[in-house]
């Protein structure tokens, strides 16, 4: 048995002549929590959907996604659907639209258990109650008997997580699972996710814009830009000592105690310019247009280097330049 939950090798995701993910590789071991960050449009969601085989019609993939002993990119819809929800599951961003509005919550949860675990309706019901209980949902019986529209966003997202955890998957992908929730609920939901990973020793890929969340929850992080991973490594390394100019800019634009200007509120430095659109993606480094360190060399595509904290940049930020 593999000791990784997911291995992505040189994943390319494209639609006709638009390449959105341009060669992404990473490995998530069991029990490992990975954060995936990056600007809007970096290709995070498409990477996740490609792994799950849930891309919309027309999108194509290349490379390999290894999970449960096979390359998922070459598997049929039938083979994939036998894995989805059982060995790998996904939690989506918007819980208000993610549940079937015409089916009771109970039916949606028990279906998963009965389908994948072949348990009886009665057992499925009992197990669902246990799951909902674990999600800190009060009165699980009445929740099982509710339609999604009767529940709050936070409740629905917990249900989504319960559904994702139902069959003890090896891999959970959560794509901005808390963006649509209010702040107090966000923390609770993340804690649940965190506890589940610890308890079940599964791999987690957490996509978010919230760097503190990643810092608090994950051991590893991958920073995506322009459809590529530009920097990856241990949280402690990457966040304290960013080597890629984009990562550095990203961290600098986060509110921290250091950059709160006591006289005039917060003044956060932001990265100038914006992500190039897919149809105008340069052949070389995608960040070049916005990068202060860009040189002639950057017209070529930088690959991740072989350091422990990998970076794809011709002129990585040196330790010494950190403060500059």
């Amino acid at each position, binding site marked *: 048995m593999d000791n990784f939950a997911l291995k992505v090798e*040189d994943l*390319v995701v*494209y639609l*006709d*002549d*638009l*390449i959105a993910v341009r*060669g992404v590789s990473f490995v998530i071991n069991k029990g490992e929590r990975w954060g995936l960050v990056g600007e809007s449009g970096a290709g995070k969601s498409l990477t996740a959907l490609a792994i799950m085989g849930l891309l919309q019609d027309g999108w194509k993939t*290349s490379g390999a996604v290894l999970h449960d002993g096979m390359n998922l990119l070459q598997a049929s819809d039938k083979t994939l659907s036998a894995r989805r929800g059982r060995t790998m599951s996904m939690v989506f961003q918007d819980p208000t639209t993610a549940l079937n509005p015409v089916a009771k919550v109970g039916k949606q949860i028990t279906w998963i258990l009965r389908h994948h675990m072949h348990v009886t309706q009665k057992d499925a019901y009992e197990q669902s109650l246990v799951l909902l209980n674990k999600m800190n949902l009060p009165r699980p019986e009445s929740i099982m008997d509710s339609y999604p529209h009767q529940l709050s966003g936070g409740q629905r997202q917990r249900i989504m997580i319960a559904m994702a955890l139902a069959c003890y998957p090896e891999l959970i992908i959560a794509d901005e699972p808390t963006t649509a929730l209010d702040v107090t609920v966000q923390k609770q939901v993340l804690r649940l996710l965190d506890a589940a990973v610890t308890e079940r020793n599964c791999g987690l890929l957490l996509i978010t814009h919230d760097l503190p969340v990643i810092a608090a929850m994950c051991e590893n992080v991958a920073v995506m830009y322009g459809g590529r991973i530009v920097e990856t490594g241990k949280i402690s390394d990457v966040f304290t000592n960013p080597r890629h100019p984009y990562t550095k800019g990203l961290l600098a634009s986060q509110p921290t105690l250091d950059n709160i200007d006591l006289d005039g509120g917060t003044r956060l430095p932001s990265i100038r310019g914006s992500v190039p659109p897919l149809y105008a993606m340069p052949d070389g480094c995608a960040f070049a247009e916005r990068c202060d360190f860009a040189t002639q060399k950057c017209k070529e595509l930088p690959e991740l280097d072989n350091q422990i904290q990998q970076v794809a940049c011709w002129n990585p930020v040196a330790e010494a330049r950190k403060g500059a």
Partner: protein
Amino acid sequence: MSEKLQSVKNSLKRPRKKSRLPLIVGASITLVMVIIGVISMFWIPQDVNVSDPSIRMLPIGTPHHLFGTDFLGRDVTSMLMTGVRTSVIIGASAAFLSLFIGTLFGMLAASISKLDEPIMRTADIFMAMPGIIFALVLASTIGAGYVTTIFALTSFFTPAFVRVTRASSMRVLSEDYISVARLYGRSRLFITIRHVLPNVSSILIVQFTIYFAAGVLSEAGLSFLGVGINRPSVSLGMMLHEAVEQIGITDPLGVWPGLGIVILVIGLNLLGDGLRDYFDPRFSQRVR
């Protein structure tokens, strides 16, 4: 490391452009039909109401009577040309009037909240009524003809335009830049006319072609029942009415008017679909 990226790059295909074929075919058919209609206003081979018993029921392809003659010896080519004209005029007028009235009320409903309920409920009522029954009654009480038919069709097409305009206007009115315009003290009605109309015009053009087609079909149905267009005017539905009344369903002349209607309606529907694709913002973004 990224061989895949390179190989994908080498194998990329331009996106298959959504075919413009429906648009072109639809526009061509419509144009040809309109041209036939316009020509018939100035010239037709023969007066459509002049009968000649000596040349009754001539077959297709007879010299001087390309499509033959009917049971009274009237020239079918001339009747077909005139019939196409009638279809185009009635379909276009009904669709245009509905567009005009419907847009007006739709925008009023969207921009003046007091009027919203009354206008929409009235539209609902008209929408749920069996239009043909009313047209039938109307035609037999105030008399059949162009005006009655157009009036009846307009009454029953207008609600659809009201709904579409209102829905689209509401959507545009909820956008950010509209709130900015409101901050500058513009009234909702002004904003609707200034900002919403240009935004919904493409939807309305598509809707226009669809109801143009519906108008052609409805007119044909009414005339077939004998309560739409009557002699001395000629319409395609009326020709079928005459053929069935006089000869029965085996009349070979029953084919051409029906085919004429089908071609015109398919042309208009294709045009509508083509325009919809052409205007679709999602699509045009993708094409970039």
